[in-house]
């Protein structure tokens, strides 16, 4: 389809792919980017929160024309049972700054913008093009890709795999394994539209200010899961995700769970009168540090979700995608500039740059968290939310019971449910996994 040879082929036009393509093209490399969707973003799903500092490192003046929804001034964490929520809210005027730190975005729109920036830098983008195979020589060195276009082989010095969590090329070429049910979450989400003024009054914000709510609780039916509600300019993203292995065991229907979640008495009033315009589903990498695969080889690197880069505890994914894409691009540029070949030995520079960055340090810090939360899901996601709700209600309801008796009741409930040993062990294990 294209006769010429490229310095690099990037497979995918999501956050990681665009970051890699932009970084390389802006340093003068000849880059071909392949995207199977009709337009960049048409296959991509995210909550979505975008962290400014990681994008600033790629496009410093992005605020001038990027499609940003709202900058976040308030974060709410809710622990929910069937009728209640116990919350921790943090709101600060400090978040109303010249260059805000976090924004909500709508991925299809954001990705179109990011892709336009890449093309402005000289990236050749082909959409509606599914890469079907990596072309490898007898030694396994990646030479290029085959696509579903006519005569669809194309060659490059290096292929950047930014194919997402459900990417097929890497696993089918033996470069990494497919995700396992216990290391990925299935998330479902809806986009609910409301007038901007309604959102502002319901969430007590003005102008472009926005609010994030993230929840755990009985809505996940004892599965390891998280719910979320993000305010966009004129819409609300609402959804939940649970581990695929837990879904397989419980056989709960994700869309019925989402419906129950939306109808929760703490959530329904926030969505009332809205019009749903899209329903989406996507996998999220949840295995953390221990699931990171081999990241480079002869003629290839892997970035973003495909490399299992996601910090499930802090719910950071797209910034790790952007950072890994940027670092891969920088490494490739440096190797190219030194006129060295794109061998495994040279491409290990990418891994060195990652190791020196916050990305690997953060994932390493929480390496034991997935194991803890995934094996104790009914305690952390069902029992504790119920107990906390009961405790809060017991504390607040004035009914003539003495305060001492109320306290005893609450501690008895915790001990009966989890036992003293269980409570201590949960606390200790959580503390150790966190440090």
């Amino acid at each position: 389809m294209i006769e010429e040879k490229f310095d690099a082929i990037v497979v995918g036009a999501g956050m990681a792919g665009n970051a890699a393509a932009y970084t390389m093209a802006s340093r003068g490399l000849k880059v071909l980017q392949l995207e199977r969707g009709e337009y960049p973003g048409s296959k991509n799903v995210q909550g979505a929160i975008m962290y400014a500092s990681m994008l600033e490192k790629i496009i410093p003046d992005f605020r001038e024309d990027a499609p940003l929804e709202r900058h976040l001034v308030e974060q709410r964490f809710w622990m929910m049972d069937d009728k209640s929520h116990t919350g921790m809210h943090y709101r600060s005027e400090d978040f109303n700054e010249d260059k805000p730190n976090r924004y909500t975005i709508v991925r299809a729109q954001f990705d179109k913008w990011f892709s336009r920036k890449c093309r402005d830098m000289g990236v050749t983008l082909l959409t509606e093009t599914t890469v079907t195979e990596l072309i490898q020589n007898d030694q396994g060195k990646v030479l290029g890709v085959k696509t579903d276009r006519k005569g669809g082989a194309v060659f490059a010095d290096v292929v950047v795999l930014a194919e997402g969590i459900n990417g097929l090329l890497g696993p089918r070429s033996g470069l990494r394994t497919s995700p396992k049910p216990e290391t990925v979450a299935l998330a479902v989400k809806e986009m609910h539209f409301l007038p901007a003024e309604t959102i502002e009054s319901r969430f007590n914000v003005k102008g472009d200010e926005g609010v994030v709510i993230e929840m755990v609780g009985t809505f996940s039916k004892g599965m390891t899961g998280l719910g979320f509600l993000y305010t966009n300019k004129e819409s609300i993203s609402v959804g939940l995700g649970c581990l695929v292995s837990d879904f397989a065991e419980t056989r709960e229907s994700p869309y019925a769970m989402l419906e129950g979640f939306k109808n929760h008495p703490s959530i329904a009033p926030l969505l009332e009168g809205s019009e749903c315009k899209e329903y989406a589903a996507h996998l999220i990498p949840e295995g953390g540090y221990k699931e990171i695969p081999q990241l480079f080889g002869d003629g290839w690197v892997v970035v973003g979700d495909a490399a299992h880069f996601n910090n499930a505890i802090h719910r950071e994914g797209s910034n790790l995608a952007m950072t890994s894409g940027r670092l891969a691009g920088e490494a490739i540029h440096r190797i190219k500039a030194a006129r060295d070949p794109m061998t495994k030995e040279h491409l290990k520079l990418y891994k060195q740059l990652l190791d020196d960055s916050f990305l690997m340090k953060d994932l390493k810090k929480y390496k034991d968290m997935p194991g803890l939360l995934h094996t104790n899901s009914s305690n952390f996601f069902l029992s504790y939310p119920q107990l906390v709700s009961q405790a809060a209600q017991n504390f607040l309801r004035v009914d003539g019971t003495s305060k001492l008796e109320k306290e005893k009741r609450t501690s008895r409930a915790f001990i009966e449910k989890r036992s003293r040993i269980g409570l201590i062990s949960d606390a200790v294990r959580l503390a150790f996994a966190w440090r």
Partner: protein
Amino acid sequence: MTIAVRVEDKLFQNRYLVDAGRPHITVAVHEKPSANLMALTTICPAKCYELNEKGQVDVTPDGCMECGTCRVLCEASGEITWNYPRGGYGVLYKFG
């Protein structure tokens, strides 16, 4: 509280370009579905998998959102084959 939900009402909101006659997912011939294959009839977020009158699982991936849940559960065992739709086909998110 039980809430009746028809996933069709949700999928109706979405844009798709269906590659007619070229399903990107197929189920292998089987006598009795495994636990994971059976689970897909309820956990597939687009309800693409259904039990037929013979007690076997069929797939109709027209409403598929290409999440990969079924691939993660049933590809390695050979119970399903999973490929991306041809370029440009499949789900087309307006918002994502």
